[in-house]
Each structure stands twice: as C-alpha cells, then as structure tokens.
C-alpha cells in the first residue's frame, strides 16, 4: 500500500515537472542534468513498483495501476527528450516593424511596429505566420507549435528622439546594428559594472556627427545607486557622447521620457520593453495529453477495483480473526 502511494506520488510529481516546461517555460532548469536525473529517478521508482506488481505484490489494484504508471512513463519520456535532448532555448530579437524568418519552424515572425508609447507600455505583439498562411499570436504564456514552445520575453528597449539646438528633428541611426535606421534600441549587449550586468547599445545622430553609448538601468539597479536620483521608480539610461572620431564629449543621466541635452543634441529616451520571441524545446502535446489521460484513467480504474475488493477483504479479515 505504501509503495503504491509512493509510486503514484512520484508519478504525479514527475508529470508536474514535465508539464512545468509548458506552463513556466522561462525556467532554465529544464536543460540541466539535475532535472534529467530527477526524471530518471522517478522513472526508476515507477519501474521498481511495476516489477513488484509483476511479482504479485499489490494484487489487482496494483496491476490496474500499471496503466497510470505507463501514462506517467510516457510523460517522463517526453519530458526527458525535450529537456535533455532538445535544443537550448533560442531568442529571436527583431526590430519593431520587421519580419524575421524562422526556417526551423517553417514560419516568419512579424514584430509589431512600436512607437514611444508602445515601448513604455511594453505591450508590443509578435505574430508568427506559417507557410500555410495560418497566423499565430504569441503571448507571454507559452504557445506550443510542434515540438517547440513559443513565448515572448520582454527585453529592455528605448525609443529615441533627438533634436538639434534649433529644435530640428534629427535622424537616429545604429551604425553597429543591422537595424540601421531604427530609433528603437534593443540593448543586445551587456557590460559588467560593479555587481551589475548592464544592457547597453549605441546610436548616432549623423547630421551632427555624434555617437552615443546608452547604458540601461532598471529601477532595481537605480535603487542601489549611491547618488541622489529624483525618480528611482522608472528605468533610466546613462548617455555617453563622443564625436565620430571617438573624442569624448560628455556624459549625462537621462530618465525615461525626459529631455536631456548632451554634446549639442537634445535627446529623449522613452524606456520600457520590447519582446523577443523565445523558442524552447517542449514535450509534444500528444504525448502529454495521452500520458496524463492514461495516468488519470489508470488511477480511476484501480480505485474501482479497490472499492470492489474492500468488502471481501473486510470479510476475509473477519474470518481470519475468528
């Protein structure tokens, strides 16, 4: 009886661990050896119980419970395959308004255009369009597609605007990025500063021969800043300005949405997030559905047997007592 409960509990926990790949896809746990080992141990426990049942240890109830354990085994196998053998989670970082082909999925990702307000809200969408024309809106919660799970990963972003001293709007370019003509910085690189890994990006205002480096600080980072900052509840950037020969021209702190003037350029950086499309290996849906269905059905079937058997067992117990 105890071994039956233990096997069921281990099966349920293992199923929960595998389903977590779909419901909490951001956890890096699934590609670790510890995760694979936990599933392998669970599988071994189920096998040990099944072996005991084969020898007649748990009677009819145990035999019927093998159906449930087979279901758990299917789910564990699928989880191991996706977690251990599947590719690591990949992120597709797309410039707002562009299309990124994803050959592995036979699809293209449409990254929605984003203005300053959309970056501040962080609610831009990504739509996946497959070769057959079907469109799939991807959200923060995981969305299975074949043996992959798609979800949006918010990344720091800045929508930039710049003006010269006369107030004329200036072109923003990103000379070191493929998104040359985009005023949206996606902070694809990181710089270690003290205890922080700070995302940074660069942009230029070629009309005035200025090049800027922007370091992105979250409110949490700002809270740890020693200097007095009026507003630590919103993200901010530190801007370093240089001319196009590399001579340093200044440094300034730029809160989100506030105009600052540096090296003769008035800059407004509206900060927030813009999503990247994350593609994670996931157990195939059919395996999860079939495995969980078998698990539930097996428990139900064995419970029915248990109910049928219990009065006879009670009578037998009375006979033995006599």
């Amino acid at each position: 009886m105890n071994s039956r409960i233990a096997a069921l509990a281990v099966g349920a926990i293992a199923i929960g661990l595998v389903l977590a790949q779909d419901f909490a896809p951001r956890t890096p746990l699934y590609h670790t050896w510890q995760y694979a080992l936990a599933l392998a141990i669970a599988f071994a426990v189920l096998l040990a119980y099944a072996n005991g049942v084969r020898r007649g240890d748990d009677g009819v109830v145990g035999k019927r419970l093998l159906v449930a354990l087979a279901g758990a085994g299917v789910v564990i196998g699928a989880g191991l395959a996706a977690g251990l053998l599947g590719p690591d989670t990949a992120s597709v970082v797309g410039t707002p308004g562009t299309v990124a082909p994803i050959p592995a999925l036979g699809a293209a990702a449409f990254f929605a255009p984003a203005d300053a307000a959309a970056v501040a809200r962080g609610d831009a969408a990504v739509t996946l369009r497959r070769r057959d024309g079907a469109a799939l809106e991807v959200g923060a919660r995981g969305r299975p597609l074949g043996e992959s799970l798609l979800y949006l990963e918010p990344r720091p972003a800045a929508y930039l605007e710049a003006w010269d001293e006369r107030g004329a709007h200036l072109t923003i370019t990103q000379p070191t990025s493929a998104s040359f003509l985009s005023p949206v910085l996606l902070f694809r690189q990181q710089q270690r500063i003290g205890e922080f890994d700070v995302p940074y990006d660069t942009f230029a205002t070629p009309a005035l021969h200025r090049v800027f480096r922007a370091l992105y600080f979250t409110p949490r980072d700002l809270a740890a800043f020693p200097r007095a900052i009026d507003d630590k509840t919103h993200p901010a950037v530190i801007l370093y300005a240089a001319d196009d020969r590399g001579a340093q021209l200044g440094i300034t702190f730029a809160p989100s949405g506030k105009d600052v003037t540096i090296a003769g350029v008035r800059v407004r950086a509206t900060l927030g997030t813009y999503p990247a499309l994350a593609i994670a290996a996931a157990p195939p849906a059919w395996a999860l559905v079939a495995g969980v269905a078998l698990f539930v059905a097996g428990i139900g079937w064995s419970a029915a047997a248990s109910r049928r058997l219990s009065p006879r067992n009670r009578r037998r117990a009375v006979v033995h007592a006599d």
Partner: protein
Amino acid sequence: MLLAGCYSAPDPKSAAGGGPSTLAGAPAQSFDVRRTDGRVDSLAAHRGEVVLMNLWATWCPPCREEMPALQAFARAYAGRVVVLGVDQGEASSVAAAFASERGVTFPILVDESQQYGRTYQGVGLPTTVIVGRDGRVVRGIDGAMTLEQMRVAVAPALAPLAPRRASR
C-alpha cells in the same frame, strides 16, 4: 568616413534582417506621414501604380549625390512611375529647404519616426524600393543609383502583364 554615417555594420547583409533586397515579393508596408507640403501621403495611397520609393536624409552624402538622377528619373517617368522621396528622421523644414534648393519636384514624405526605414530594413542610406501595381515589393536596393540603374530597376514593374489566353 563619409559613408560611415550612412551605413551600418561592416557586413550588414549577413546580419539578421538581411537588408532591403530580401523583401522582394513581400507586401509593401505603408504608413501615413506628412509631406513637406503638409499633405498626408503613404505608399498605400498609390496602390495600382508603380512606385519608386527612395529613403534618404540631407546629411547623407550619397543621397545628395543621387538626388539629381532621381529628379531626372521622376521627370522622365512622370505618369508611369510615382517617385516618393522619404526623408528619414529629419524635421520637415530641413527636408523642404534641401528639396527646394536642389529643385526637387517629386513629393518628399517626412518620416520623423523612421517607420519606413525600419520596415524596409534599410541597412544604409539611400535605400530604394520599387513597389509594383499589386502593392508588392519588386526590388529593394541598397546604395545610390544612377539614372540608368533606376531605369533597369523599374523595368520589370512596368512590363505589361502576360496576356490571358483568349477564350473562344
């Protein structure tokens, strides 16, 4: 040095995005923006016509060099090809002053938020996009063009549609 201001990473076509040439055959995205004359214009407003859209900026030396050829092309192909200059990120007054000084007569759209530049994956300036009558991108070209190159670029879009087999 001059080109450094007008172009992105050393090998932009190898990076994600792929540059404007990869957009051939895709539906042409359109955004409403103001022209230097104050009217609102867009690519979509010219659906059914062949459009040569040129993304440029006044600070970009190759764009300035290309402008006379673009003006000559606009004149030569008036009535057959709509030429739209789309200034990237600058103030309307700046673009208008430049156009007036250079005798540009085709419409200049002022795309302050650089929506066209982003969407057409401009890896540098100037970028030219030819859009067919069906609203799809025929070609995306990175870099300055000569008048002759412009003629060659629009030729496939101007070619008459293949005649349908006559029914008896």
